[in-house]
Structure formats: structure tokens, C-alpha cells
């Protein structure tokens, strides 16, 4: 999936003047995602090669949430996913890129979404277990942290990636789950939030990652729910042009992607109603390119597939009519996680 941004900008329709008339341009967004791969002659296309498998997951998930799951050809998607797989069971961002936790999680999410675990076994002998072992090899058995790759830095994001992928593969017990939970607890800050490592500043993206992992491990009881949810609800911008939008840290600008990181976190804590859903809805809708489709980080900026999926997923969490329900833990269609996890 190409990650070229633009060419359109969000908010081109002047949505701020007529907020009551804003709505989601579903067909335009579908078309926008569909045509991303026709833009391979653009300079930015290869500059974003290191994100290609993530991009495919973002585009595919957006299409499913928009109610158009069959737009991308299943076999073509699978061909690409498997071409990123390494002998050791990990996936790189694109063919020839080193295996990394971030892309391995995206690969598993794509396979799950396409009901392709059977294809995995057919195409790669013992594929499921191989992926599991790649992930397990990245867990530090002393601290519980999970590395991004065999050289790599630890980051709470990778714990979420590992837990998501392993649970979808029904392989979570092959790593030491309680140890990773303790590591996450060591990243909790006095404000109730979590950062990328112990002591690092609370950040909504990292909070999503930690809560996702804790939800999967059934360990949300370790969270100071009221304090964290209070901090998360303070991420909503109360005045100015970005009103209703959410930011990732205090005194930072609003950004559509935090509609997902913050709102899904609140949903996991059963506190989604602590932000003003209508105001947030208006903000996300005002970031659409109403002509060519796609959603940007904030009105006036270029649209891209990253902000498109998280904008759509945020609207889904807000119960926007016509969208498929999203799972706040996995950022995947809820019908799919229900099928796989049986709950």
C-alpha cells in the first residue's frame, strides 16, 4: 500500500463554517485508498518503502471499516505479505527489508483480517509457529520488555505488537506474559499515563499500546483507571481552530490519529464518554478531503492513509452510522476479532 500523501488536503470544503452539514464521504475514501497503488511513479512512494506493510494494514483496515472489504484483491495482498516474510518467521516492511516486530504485527493482522491463517500454513510449512517463535525470541527474559528486532531498542509499542500478533495466532502463552506486564507497570507515570520506557513522558500512542497489551493479557486491573482516563480526557482541545480534536501530550497540537489512540484507550477503560464525542466527530469530519477522499492530521494539511484509517476508526468508535464496528484493542474490525478470539 502506497504511503504517498496528498494530493488533496483535508478540510477543502470549508467544513468549519457549516459543521452541522458535515458527513463522512465513504465512497471517496474507498476510491482514495483504492488508487494509492496507481501512484508508484511518485518520489515519495519509495521514500516510504520502510512502511509498506504497515500501509497495507492501514488501507485494508480502513476499507473493512468503510464496509468495502473486497476492494483489494485477496491473493495479491497475500502474495505481497508473504514476500516480506523471512526464514526466521519475522516480516520486513517490504521485500529485502529486515524483519521487525512492527511489520510482523501488521502481517498477522492482515492475515487475520483476510482469514488467511490456512493460507499461511499452506504457503509456509509451520508458518504459524515460526512467527510465534520469532516474536518470542525478541522478549528479554530478564526484564520482560520486547525488542523491535534482534538489534533493537525496547519500546512499549513492541509489547503491544507482540501481544496482538500472538493472541491472534493463539500463541500468547509461548512468551512470559506476567513479566511483560510488570515491565509495562514500570512505565506508569505519576500522571497515570505510560511512556515508551520507564520514566519516559506519558504519550497517548504509548498509552494505547500499553492498554492494548494489558487488555489482551486480562490485566487492566493494574491500571489506575480514573487517573489515566482523566488525563486522557484532558487531551481534548477546548478552544481555537482545533476544538474537539485530541492531542497526544499536554500542550501539543490536535491530530486526527489521536482520535484513535486516545479514544480507543478510553474505550478500553470503559470511559469513552469522558470526551465530547460530537465535538470530536466534527473535528475528524473537518479533516476530510471532500473532493478526492482521504483524511489529514488537521484541516489544511495533506491527506494520507495513516490518518485516513485512524480517522475512520475513531468515527467507528463514536458509533458513526454506516461504519463497521472497530475493536479498540486491535484496531481491526470487531467481527474479525470476535471470529478469531471467540469473544
Amino acid at each position, binding site marked *: *500500500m502506497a504511503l504517498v500523501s496528498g494530493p488533496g488536503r483535508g478540510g477543502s470544503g470549508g467544513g468549519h463554517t457549516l459543521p452541522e452539514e458535515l458527513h463522512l464521504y465513504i465512497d471517496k475514501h474507498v476510491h482514495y485508498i483504492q488508487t494509492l*497503488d496507481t501512484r*508508484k*511513479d511518485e*518520489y515519495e*512512494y*519509495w*521514500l*516510504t*518503502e*520502510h*512502511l*509498506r506493510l504497515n500501509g*497495507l494494514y492501514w488501507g485494508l483496515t480502513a476499507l473493512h471499516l468503510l464496509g468495502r472489504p473486497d476492494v*483489494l484483491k485477496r491473493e*495479491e*495482498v497475500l*502474495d*505481497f505479505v*508473504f*514476500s516480506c516474510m523471512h526464514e526466521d518467521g519475522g516480516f*520486513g*516492511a*517490504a*521485500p*529485502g*527489508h*529486515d524483519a*521487525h516486530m512492527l511489520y510482523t504485527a501488521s502481517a498477522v493482522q492482515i492475515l487475520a483480517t483476510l482469514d488467511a491463517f490456512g493460507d499461511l500454513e499452506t504457503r509456509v510449512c509451520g508458518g504459524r509457529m515460526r512467527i510465534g517463535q520469532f516474536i518470542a525470541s525478541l522478549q528479554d527474559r530478564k526484564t520482560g520488555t520486547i525488542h523491535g*528486532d534482534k*538489534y*533493537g*531498542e525496547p519500546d512499549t509499542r513492541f509489547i503491544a505488537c507482540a501481544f496482538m500478533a500472538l493472541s491472534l495466532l493463539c500463541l500468547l502463552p509461548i512468551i512470559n506474559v506476567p513479566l511483560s506486564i510488570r515491565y509495562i507497570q514500570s512505565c506508569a*507515570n*505519576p*500522571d497515570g499515563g505510560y*511512556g*515508551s*520506557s520507564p*520514566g*519516559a*513522558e506519558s*504519550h497517548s500512542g504509548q498509552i494505547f499500546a500499553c492498554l492494548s497489551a494489558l487488555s489482551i493479557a486480562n490485566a487492566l486491573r493494574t491500571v489506575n483507571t*480514573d487517573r489515566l*482516563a*482523566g488525563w486522557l*480526557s*484532558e487531551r*481534548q482541545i*477546548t478552544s481555537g481552530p482545533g476544538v*474537539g480534536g485530541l492531542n497526544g*501530550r*499536554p*500542550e*501539543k497540537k490536535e491530530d486526527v490519529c489521536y482520535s484513535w489512540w486516545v479514544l480507543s484507550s478510553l474505550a478500553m477503560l470503559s470511559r469513552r*464518554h*469522558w*470526551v*465530547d464525542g460530537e*465535538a470530536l466527530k466534527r473535528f475528524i469530519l473537518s479533516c476530510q478531503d471532500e473532493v478526492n477522499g482521504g483524511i489529514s492530521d488537521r484541516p489544511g494539511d495533506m491527506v494520507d492513509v495513516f490518518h485516513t484509517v485512524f480517522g475512520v476508526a475513531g468515527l467507528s468508535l463514536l458509533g458513526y452510522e454506516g461504519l463497521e464496528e472497530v475493536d479498540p484493542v486491535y484496531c481491526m474490525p470487531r467481527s474479525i476479532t470476535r471470529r478469531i478470539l471467540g469473544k
Partner: protein
Amino acid sequence: MLEKMAKYSNAEEWADIVPIPQDDGPGQPLAAIAYSDDYVEAMSYLRAVMANNEMSERALHLTEDIIRMNPAHYTVWLYRSRILFATSSSLPAEITWLNTIALKYQKNYQIWHHRHTIVDALNSCTGEQDFLSQMFELDMKNYHVWSYRQWLVKRFDLWEGKGELEAVESILERDVRNNSAWNHRWYLVFGRGESCFEDKERVRREVDYAKEAIHLAPQNQSPWNYIRGLIRQTKGPAALSLASFKQFASEFASLDDPDNVTSSHALDLLAEILAEREGDAADAAKALDLLAKKYDPIRENYWKYRKSLLVGQGGVKAAA
């Protein structure tokens, strides 16, 4: 195309290498990648030298060339660091080069991981703080830089007397709302262990610092969070009670003067203080109503929830 693909294929130095073209796997319209010619050529030589696991000066230059074109290509960085160590290249020279790349590409994970690896191997952080100041000139809230800075503090024992606290204070003097700087301050002052929370002198200094910052900008969330953190974490001889902040909070939010609240955070803290005593529950409810209706209505549901926890106000007080 052929004339353009000249940088490597026409160079004597690279004559022995047979470039390996991109293999996108079988039939992949989704992934077929169209590159610029220079990049296509450099990458085809990279694949060839990586296939041989070549550890050489020319391979190092090749990675530099590719990183300049595409610094987010994490595989190239990993290869580069292996070459650096295998060929015993100059690590200080690597840092100098890295500085230019870091200043140019600010939102990049690989650069900081690479720096971490090199500085750790150098076993010296000389010049690092100065460079980080340069980075902060571009963006004082860059998450990568602050995370790296924390690692630096721990790795090289910069907790005290090494200019860190001064650096934080200078950033806060320029922007008292910089939450990253507040977080780093907390890390420096309390990050070394639980005993820091029992140090009365240290805690008093921090309370004074946060109060002073609040006077400068009462609606700034960071120092209020800092004070709440202090109330929760301090202990033993340095323990702070919630009630001891009643007078301070009242300076910015008084129930006797509900039209002139200058900080919703003060009102929030006041509500929490009042909620501690059953006799004050009615006043706590007043404060929470003010927040829900007047000072922070976007979070109405949150304030209603807080009110529901008050004893004798239609709710049951939850355990803290």
C-alpha cells in the same frame, strides 16, 4: 536510464560487484516499486554487498549515500553499524556525521537508536548535551530526543551537578508549558530511587519550583500534575498532604468568587481536597459543578463522574 545509472556502475572501485536488482517476489502489482534512478542503482549495489556481508570502507560510503536519500530505511542503518564496528571506523567521526542527519530528519527512530549504539560503544558523552540543545532549538518536545536524553542521564550518571537540571530550567524559562521538560525534571529529581521521595529538602524545592511556575501561567497543566505527583509519591518525613495545598489552590479558584476562577486545574485540586472531608462534600460538589458547567464543560461527563463519588452527594466515595 543507463546514462543516469553511472555513479556506481561506471566507478572503478565498484567494478567487481554485480548489482542485484529489486526482487519484488512473484507477481506483485501491489508492491512493484518505481524508484528514482540513483536510488535504484545504489540499492542494487547495497543488495550485492549485503549478500556478501562485505565489511568495507566503500560499503560504508554506500550506506551513507542511501541514508541521505532515505534515512528511514532501517535495514541500511543496521548494516552500517555492523560495518562501523567490523572495520574499527572512527566513532567520533560517525557522531559528527550523524549530527547533520539528525538535524535534518527530526522524526526518525533509526538515527537515535544508531546514536545510542555508537555513544554506548564510545563510552563517553562528551558533546552530547550541547548537541541535544541544538536539537531542541528545532523542536523542544521531540520525543526521540528526550528519550535519548534520559538514557544518557542513566548511562553516564548525569543525575546531579552535570548541567541537566540547569538545561531543563532554561527550557522551562523559555516555555513553562513544555511537558517534556517537566517530565525530564521529574526523572532527574526522583528517577534514582524511592529514597528521593523521602528527602524533605528536595521535595520542598520541587514544590516551590512548581508553585512559582503556576504563578507564571495558572492554566498550565504540567506543574499542577507535578504537584499531584508529589502529593501521591512523597513519603516519610517528606510526605505532603493534599489538604496542605488548600490555600494555594484557593489563590486561583475560590468558591466565594466563582466568576473569577483563573485556573480550572486549581478548581479541580480544590474539589479533590474538599472531597476528602465528608463535611466539605457540598462544597466539593459546587466546585465540580463549576467545572462541568462553566470552566471545563467539554469534559462534563468526567466532572459528573467525580461528583458521583462524593459521599452524601448521591454517590458513594470510592476507595482512593
